[in-house]
């Protein structure tokens, strides 16, 4: 059971893919997930992060089965 990673909106276009998978053995935090799936691309300022659909900080720990998401500031409504 690996970790599912999702990118939305402008971040999806910058990263160049909507989704990725990463092994839970090579990452400890949300920041690690970003670095591993983007080849250490620098993370845009104001990027929002969620684990299992709840907002978290980049230091949040991740585990097998988690869904991790990265996206820019929201602009709905």
């Amino acid at each position, binding site marked *: 059971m690996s970790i599912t990673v*999702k990118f*939305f*909106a*402008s971040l999806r276009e910058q990263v160049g893919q909507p989704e990725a998978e990463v092994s839970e053995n090579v990452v400890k935090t949300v920041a690690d997930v970003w670095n591993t799936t983007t080849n250490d691309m620098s993370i845009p300022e104001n990027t*929002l992060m*969620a684990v299992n*659909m709840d*907002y978290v900080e980049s230091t949040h720990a991740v585990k097998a089965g988690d869904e991790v*998401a990265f*996206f*820019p*500031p*929201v*602009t*709905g*409504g």
Partner: protein
Amino acid sequence: MLIEIKDSPFEPYQRLLEYQSAAGFAGKYGATAVFVGSMREFNQGDDVEAMLLEHYPGMTEKYLQKISEEAAKKWDILDSLIVHRIGEMLPNDPIVLVAVWSAHRAAAFDASRYLMEELKSRAPFWKKENLVEGERWVDKNT
């Protein structure tokens, strides 16, 4: 308390009429506060020809539900309804409908505004505008 995500145009006042007729609170509410957000044909000084609204399926519904529950705890309201459009849209299309029913007006006014402000700051939706010169992501909510 209902949350709806629509991938095709909706008519907010028609939806309100239907929802209210089906709801069981006729005669209980003295106040209904409604907000409708619509697509403008201009933004930041530019003409906008069309717009694409992206969302995060699952997380969007979760946060709309969360803020609806928060509003129901904070104020004495009878019910709330949030409808939000996704996908391709054109100027003048309704984007969002928020409605709150309560016995007295202060709760309906306060809760509807709370729902809109929280939706704007926390619900994962993103707008991409089609301008004459090309596309651009809207980078922040005003």
